[in-house]
């Protein structure tokens, strides 16, 4: 079976111009560096990591809003990066995105109904009546009352807008959904509904999710696999269980360690990561994480660590994997 989404050796740099017309020079930000992963149909890959490490950029490349500098993106066996024109447009139906910003991505002049109906109209899915029905169904599914059909995004709260974005992504029944912080603005009860919905849909339609999130508990609930990114690279990748239970990379460990308490009594001063976060514009030689890594040694400042398999399906990029392998019991202690 061809995987729903296959990303190979994806790289993206941004040349940020400094000063008007770049007269003060350019700064090249390496936002994504040689990233590869595969998401099978009916599976969910969670992308987690440092803020600014390139998750959104990957998502944007996957839906082809950004053109990668290198690498390929294959959707259901078809190279997405090669398509253009009408073929590309048609193919877009298979890959939809929930945007990180629930307001900027909604046209302020369109009613909620028109927003959700847009992919249906564009991809010619169903006649007007079917579309009306489908939009209403989607509103129900994401928990938006039908009275909101005529509302403009301006008149909705953050969570309501986010649900609108989700409904739109679901509308065309795509094969792959890139969900960029799709549930961040939702309260826990709605979030539960949405997460269940996503799972149900996956079961029903076989949709694959590329799920970008900072909320590790959500990731653990929803994802099958997880990829941890740091400064544009994947530093650890593996089945959710394996990664949560036995994180191999020190950054992953720090992430898991930093999950907030679930009860006020459990508050404590966590061991926050110290050290400078290096700039994506001036990556250090060797391991990008070494500036903050408690285990860093000489080799880390010389050679970038390769992604090596730790155990079945679980790989990490660290020179000190074995020294570091610990069997922390997961999230809460």
């Amino acid at each position: 079976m061809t995987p729903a989404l296959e990303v190979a050796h994806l790289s993206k740099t941004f040349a940020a111009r400094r000063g008007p017309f770049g007269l003060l020079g350019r700064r090249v930000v390496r936002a994504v560096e040689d990233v590869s992963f595969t998401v099978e149909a009916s599976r969910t890959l969670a992308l987690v990591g440092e803020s600014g490490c390139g998750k959104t950029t990957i998502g944007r490349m996957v839906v082809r809003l950004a053109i990668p500098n290198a690498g390929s993106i294959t959707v259901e066996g078809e190279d997405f990066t090669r398509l253009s024109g009408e073929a590309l447009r048609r193919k877009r139906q298979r890959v939809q995105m929930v945007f990180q910003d629930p307001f900027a991505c909604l046209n302020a002049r369109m009613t909620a109904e028109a927003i959700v109906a847009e992919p249906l109209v564009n991809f010619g899915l169903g006649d007007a009546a079917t579309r009306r029905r489908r939009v209403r169904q989607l509103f129900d599914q994401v928990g938006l009352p039908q009275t909101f059909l005529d509302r403009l995004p301006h008149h909705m709260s953050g969570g309501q807008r986010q649900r609108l974005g989700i409904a739109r992504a679901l509308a065309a029944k795509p094969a792959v959904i890139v969900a960029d912080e799709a549930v961040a603005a939702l309260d826990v009860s709605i979030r539960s509904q949405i997460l269940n919905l996503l799972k149900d849909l996956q079961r029903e339609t076989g949709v694959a999710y590329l799920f970008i999130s900072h909320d590790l508990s959500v990731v653990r609930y929803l994802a099958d696999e997880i990829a941890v990114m740091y400064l544009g690279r994947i530093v650890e990748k593996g089945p959710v269980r394996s990664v949560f239970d036995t994180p191999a990379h020190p950054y992953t460990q720090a992430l898991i360690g930093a999950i907030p308490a679930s009860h006020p009594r459990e508050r404590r001063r966590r061991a926050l990561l110290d050290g400078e976060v290096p700039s994506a514009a001036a990556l250090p030689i060797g391991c990008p994480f070494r500036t903050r890594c408690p285990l860093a040694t000489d080799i880390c400042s010389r050679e970038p660590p390769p992604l090596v398999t730790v155990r079945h399906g679980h790989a990490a990029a660290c020179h000190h994997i074995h020294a570091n392998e610990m069997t922390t019991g997961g999230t809460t202690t």
Partner: protein
Amino acid sequence: MIAYVLGRLLAAIPVLSAVAAFVFLLLSLVPGDPAVVIAGDLATPEQVEAIRRSLALDRPLVERFVTWLGHMLTGDFGNSLFSGIAVSELIVQRIEPTLVLALMTIVIAVTVAVPLGLVSAYHPTGIVARLTMAGAVLGFSLPVFVVAFGLVYVFALGLGWFPVQSYVPLSEGLAGTLHSLVLPAVAVSFLYIALIARVTRAAVLEVLREDYVRTAHAKGLAARLILTRHVLRNAAVPVITIIGIGFAALLGGVVVTETVFSIPGLGRLTADSILRRDYPVVQALILLFSTVYVAVNLAVDIAYVLVDPRIRY
């Protein structure tokens, strides 16, 4: 970006060539010929024919175009068919008043219109908004000669502050020049104020509802600062566009104003030359205007990037 600018400058060559050829063609279509005008009302047909020959106007169109192009490439724009004065000299004589008038007008217009537009967007039901609207309607619908007449009547004939007409060249002192152009500049800027203020208002209304304006308020910035620093800059692209368009049009000459105030500018030179079919002058002028438009448009496009970093070409 530098590459972009260079590209645009290079692109000016085909643009100007196309304009040159097109104008040549247009002129050949236009009835009436300069020989007839030169000969005057009483001339007989043979006399006209003889003049036409002496001006080489009897040559085929293509031949004339090629000859003209050849001369032009060597920097020779020819002589006026009438006065015999070199076209370049004629244009140099006329460019100064036009340039000063255009600058003055646009400065007046922008300094008045932009604040008006801002305020009338910010207080859409306030007195400023209503007055601006009324002014804009008058600015759009009153021909400039009516405005000019009113100004002259009050400020020149009545109060005697400014001259009724005429232009004092820069060589006689900047103050005199500016003084002589106050009324014309105000008269033309009336329309421009209307246009710029309305565009500013429209663009600003669009921006005012953005979240970052709310952020600016949340920072406790004074309204004036919010409007100028945050709102205006985000609304600037259409405003700059209309200013650019207006400025280019002003440089292209404002015939009526120049006529009414008797200013020897490019606008009247253009109109007169067209009307008397002074081909070399018309051609050179239109090429000049094309160059101006190309330059102003390029400047405007560069300005976009300066005000809005998201814009790219």
